[in-house]
């Protein structure tokens, strides 16, 4: 198999599987002109969906980032039993189907769920409301920051932190001035992945949200609804918006990737 032959096969496969579909979506979206697209993404439902998606991500991602950094530190620098168990649990969101995640949340926080009566007694609504969607999003985007920060921490080693200690720095100072700067690109990369996952979440959020237009409908749910209502152009328009966000994510990943490897 010649070099050029292999290259051709690989590129053809990628083109057919990746590029052409995405290209077609953009083409079909703008087929009817820029104006139609603009109208489509500025309907009240679309605007609300956009901001809701952002809102959910803005809550979920920082929480996961904080959890991620703390857990990565505990896993790499700490000594305690049960590390492999925790490691395995962190990988669970990768292995569980989104619909199962949605189901799980309903079973705990829903009307007939384990916490159901306690929640309704206190007037807190989780399922079929934004908090439920936030929980679902946290679940699915949980592992990313940990999985990016832990290897970086391992690579760097703790010599710098030891040096800081000998120079008189407290744990907090060491963390803030030495550890955090050295892992900042790992965190950034993990945040980008986490955000992309959060924005793109569909299955779990689909079950948990109740899909009330203008209230609990994210961009991904909007795409599905429009398609179901035969508003294909509208579905394409929202998809194109999400695809643009995805490409921006890829760009961010490409830029950050080389920097997260310690020199």
């Amino acid at each position, binding site marked *: 198999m010649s070099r050029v032959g292999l290259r051709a096969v690989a590129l053809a496969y990628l083109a057919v599987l990746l590029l052409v579909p995405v290209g077609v979506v953009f083409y079909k979206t703008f087929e009817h002109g820029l104006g139609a697209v603009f109208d489509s993404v500025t309907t009240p439902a679309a605007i609300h969906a956009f901001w809701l998606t952002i809102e959910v991500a803005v809550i979920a991602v920082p929480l996961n980032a904080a959890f991620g950094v703390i857990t990565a530190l505990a896993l790499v620098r700490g000594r305690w039993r049960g590390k492999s168990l925790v490691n395995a649990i962190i990988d669970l969101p990768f*292995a569980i*189907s989104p619909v199962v995640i949605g189901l799980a949340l309903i079973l705990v926080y829903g009307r007939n769920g384990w916490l159901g009566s306690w929640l309704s007694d206190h007037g807190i609504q989780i399922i079929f409301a934004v908090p439920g969607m936030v929980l679902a999003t946290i679940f699915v985007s949980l592992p990313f920051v940990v999985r990016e920060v832990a290897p970086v921490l391992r690579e760097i080693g703790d010599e710098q932190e030891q040096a800081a200690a000998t120079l008189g720095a407290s744990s907090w100072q060491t963390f803030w001035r030495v550890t955090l700067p050295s892992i900042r690109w790992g965190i950034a990369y993990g945040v980008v992945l986490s955000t992309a996952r959060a924005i793109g979440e569909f299955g779990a959020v689909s079950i948990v949200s109740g899909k009330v237009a203008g209230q609990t409908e994210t961009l991904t749910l909007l795409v599905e609804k429009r398609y179901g209502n035969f508003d294909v152009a509208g579905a394409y328009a929202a998809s194109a918006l999400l695809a643009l966000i995805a490409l921006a994510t890829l760009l961010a990943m490409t830029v950050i990737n080389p920097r997260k490897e310690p020199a």
Partner: protein
Amino acid sequence: MATIWLSLIVLIPLAAVVAKSTDGPFWETVGSRQAVSALELTVLASIGVAAINAVMGTLVAWVLVRDSFPGKGVVNALIDLPFALPTIVAGITLLALWGQHVAYTRTAIVLALLFVTLPFVVRSVQPVLLELDAEMEEAAASLGARPLTIFRLIVLPNLAPAIASGAALGFARAVGEFGSVVLVSGNIPFKTQVASVFIFNQVESDNTPGAAAVAVVLMAISLLVLLIIRRLGR
């Protein structure tokens, strides 16, 4: 402290699923023709996709590491597109491209799963290929082995663990995949209904024990595969 957070978010809800699955007739539900058909389709499609990925993913990784051509950096970045793109959008794009010919068929499911699991083997193999000691291949050449033989006897054995783990991760992802498949498969029971869509339907029809039962089987399959990867990784 982290463990409390983990439990709240992850463990307790999953435990609830397991618990609920026993609420109804577990084996009857899981053994029902429709459920079995859905599970069968899901697992077979995922295995097929994993096999295709093992081959094509390795090929793509090889070209990205060993070859050079203008735009290679862009191609490399695009491999992560399935990770970055929402699954529902992936479904729409596949519909847009393949249209009515392929929609509502099993081919559509396979195509959707191939899209979503593309990066796994590629990203798993790339670092191993990069680290591979090129001198081993030169030594084999100096001893008379031709390029195909070198690939078979030297490169492949060293890549095998990475290929296996990438394929297994892709499999675990594929069995649970929902967003890209739900539109494209048409949800025809016994023909194109995958397990995740089946579960979704049960939830919508308020049959949570039924949904939980099949969910437990699905989880068991994923977790089994992941456990095997971890073992291999030693």
